């Protein structure tokens, strides 16, 4: 099979995530490329949670609507997802928990006496997931050896019992088909949040500070796990207000810090964002989007904060906003964001969403682009230190406490070159212009990089314009339909020239966004980049390839 998808579902607390990660690792051993879509409600026990593990011969970054395997640990899973079954799909289920009624005609139903096995082995309820993974492997012709290897690596607790349960699930049924191993190198499997974290670490991150908030909490957990290995200081303080102010304290002392949050937490950070701009203290903010307004749908996805992050904070000041589209870009642009924040002493925002943050990807370091720690514009030590020395580029040389015979003053008030408060009209104007000048030089530097990517059929008349996590699904749909894809990875400063070049010759420009208004479409309109139609989705769910393909087909006749 060139590609196939497995859906595993149950209640929260059934270990669906763990099971899907084990299935992904198994398929990775067969050298398939993997993507996992995770869908779960905002609760700890109960509800309905599921993952779609998609495997393909080619690298992928999105899921499909239809599935080839349905692993149902409860009735809800079957009821909610039987419309995804195809003619040839396999249904593996626990007959004590699931009644397989009203299925598509040719569905192959395979009961596995999971509950019975669990009782006989006196195992805990959660091991039902191990049992069904065992059965899945047998049904798909995956060898016991591969399953055993992956389980031993992935499961720390009660491994012997888990192996026994998996073996019984494996032995309970017959092979239905054979997934052939592929002849290519396998790749690591990472969440978008982890790739992003690695990029920050590579570019010299010293500390990560965050208050838990979906979908960015994964970075906090990842950084906390990595803290000892990489010598990071990882702190979870009392609020997002404290988070960003603490980060500015770290920056003042010369330590590269990043923070992570979602819309609500970013609201609290706004005063700190504006302060960072005035004080010229570098900070990187990971802004993971989810549907709002307000609490909205905490565990679902959206692209609704583009306007917010570009406009947040009182006053006028330069900032960088990057929106990576997949794991490799998350790695590369996070490193870039950290370097640029420090070089220009500005806030840099990494705009992600639940789809990218918590989606699971194969990560190819070799194609990600080099992430490295760039040198800082340090003070040469001559003459007295002036924290806000006015320069041609607007960038003042950096020095950090403690610096012998130097006084380093930063200030949230308007200030003179030494950082002393002022209300003088001429100095106010000079300093405001100095800060804004950094944007001009930043744009000049950024223009050396490829900020607007073009994919698909490059000479096509019809093109998709998208941003962030829609990259993967748009490229796949475009390849099916023969379209071009234009994707800006940097959204502020808006790379106007590269954008205009990328859409030159396009007659039918379609924006694809996970919001209700088309925020990117509106952002680029004043620069003469007009979209002809908008494919928008604001139900908290990402596009699947099939869904997007269908919607686009109607627009490209």
């Amino acid at each position, binding site marked *: 099979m060139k590609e196939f998808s497995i859906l595993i579902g149950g209640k929260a607390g059934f270990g669906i995530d763990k099971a899907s990660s084990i299935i992904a*690792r198994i398929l*990775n051993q067969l050298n398939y490329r993997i993507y996992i879509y995770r869908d779960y409600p905002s609760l700890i026990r109960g509800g309905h949670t599921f993952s779609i593990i998609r495997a393909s011969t080619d690298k992928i970054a999105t899921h499909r609507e239809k599935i080839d395997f349905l692993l149902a640990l409860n009735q809800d899973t079957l009821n909610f997802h039987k419309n995804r079954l195809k003619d040839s799909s396999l249904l593996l289920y626990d007959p004590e928990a699931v009644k397989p009624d009203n299925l598509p005609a040719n569905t192959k139903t395979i009961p596995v006496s999971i509950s019975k096995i669990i009782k006989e082995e006196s195992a805990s309820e959660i091991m039902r997931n191990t049992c069904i993974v065992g059965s899945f492997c047998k049904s798909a012709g995956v060898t016991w050896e591969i399953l055993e290897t992956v389980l031993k690596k992935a499961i720390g607790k009660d491994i012997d019992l888990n192996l026994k349960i998996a073996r019984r699930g494996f032995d309970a049924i017959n092979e239905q088909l054979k997934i052939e191993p592929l002849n290519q190198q396998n790749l*690591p499997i990472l969440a978008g949040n982890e790739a992003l974290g690695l990029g920050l670490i590579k570019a010299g991150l010293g500390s990560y500070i965050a208050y838990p908030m979906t979908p960015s909490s994964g970075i906090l957990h990842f950084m906390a796990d990595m803290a000892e290995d990489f*010598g990071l200081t990882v702190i979870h*303080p009392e609020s997002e207000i404290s988070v960003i102010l603490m980060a500015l304290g770290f920056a003042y002392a010369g330590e590269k810090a990043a923070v992570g949050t979602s819309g609500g937490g970013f609201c609290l950070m706004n005063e700190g964002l504006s302060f960072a701009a005035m004080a010229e203290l570098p900070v990187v903010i990971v802004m993971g989007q989810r549907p709002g307004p307000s609490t909205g749908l905490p565990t679902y996805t959206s692209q609704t904060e583009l306007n917010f992050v570009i406009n947040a904070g009182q006053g006028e000041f330069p900032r960088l906003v990057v929106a990576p589209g997949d794991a490799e870009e998350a790695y590369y642009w996070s490193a870039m964001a950290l370097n640029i924040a420090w070089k220009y002493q500005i806030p840099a925002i990494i705009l992600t969403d639940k789809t990218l943050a918590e989606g699971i990807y194969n990560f190819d370091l070799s194609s990600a682009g080099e992430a490295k720690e760039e040198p800082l514009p340090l003070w040469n030590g001559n003459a007295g230190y002036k924290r806000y020395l006015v320069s041609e580029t607007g960038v003042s040389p950096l020095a950090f*406490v403690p610096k012998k015979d130097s006084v380093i003053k930063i200030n949230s008030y308007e200030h003179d070159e030494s950082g002393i408060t002022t209300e003088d009209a001429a100095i106010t104007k000079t300093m405001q212009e100095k800060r804004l000048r950094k944007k001009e030089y930043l744009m000049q530097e950024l223009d050396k990089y490829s900020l607007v990517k073009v994919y698909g059929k490059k000479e096509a008349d019809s093109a998709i314009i998208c941003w962030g996590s829609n990259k993967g699904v748009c490229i796949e749909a475009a390849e099916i339909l023969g379209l071009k894809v234009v994707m800006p990875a940097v959204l502020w400063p808006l790379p106007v020239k590269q954008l205009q070049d990328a859409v030159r010759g396009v007659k039918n420009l379609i924006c694809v966004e996970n919001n209700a208004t088309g925020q990117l479409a509106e952002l680029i309109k004043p620069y003469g980049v007009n979209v002809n139609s908008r494919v928008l989705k604001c139900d908290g769910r990402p596009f699947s390839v099939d869904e997007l393909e269908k919607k686009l087909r109607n627009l490209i006749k």
Partner: protein
Amino acid sequence: MSEINLNTYAQNTWCPGCGNFAILNAIKTVLKSLAEEGLPMENVVLVSGIGCHAKIVDYINANSFYSIHGRVVPPAEGIKLSNPNLKVIGFAGDGDAYGEGIEHLIFAAKRNIDITMIIHNNRVYGLTTGQYTPTSPLGFKGRSTPQGVREAPINPLEVMLSSGATFLARGTSHGIEGLKKIFKEAIAHKGFSLVDVLQVCVTYFNMYEYYDKKVYELQGHNSADYNAALAKIREWDYNNDAPIALGVLYKKEAPTFEERFLKPKVSTDRQAKINQFLKEAM
């Protein structure tokens, strides 16, 4: 060793008779004496919020972080965590520390992070021209409460004691010698220290006469005894007409946040470790 120059060219804009002058002069004396004892001045970082108090950092030629309203504590913590060798001294007003930023103060006390907070507690908003603060007495007539404030004040030292602060003291802006002594002890204390300074605002809430009648120096007080400290802290609740104790009310040795938290920074080959991580994620 020549005396260090702590003056700046910034023009002082406090009202004549402002209690902030006493805090400024006391802290300058303390910094000079610390320098004479060998503390490198570059290791000192002053942090302030927004309000009349905050201008103090413009008036001292030392490293400073002029923060925003209510946010003195978090950057002070970040600076300390980044480099535990730094002496981090925060200045905040009562509106700043006990109002907008009280969550940070409570958490800093809870962590026992080794920073010093000096609160310019004049019990009125000065820079915004005379509104009540968290420590204004019940019935205080401010510009936002012309009929008199309808809520009782908090006792900030009691809040701090119950939050885990390990050094608590009170001084007044009429007692500069006392302030020098307390500030020095607070800065020397290893752990979270807070000095509540009854700093008089001559323009909007002139309490000099009242305080002069009510204050007394603590004598024979066992500052290591939590219950004795609590009793002394509760003697005057910032509202009743009770005697007001000055001096060190509570002092306790306890592990600090940075000691419990920070490990020596490791310098590693990050690429090698990333490669290893990726290998394990196959």
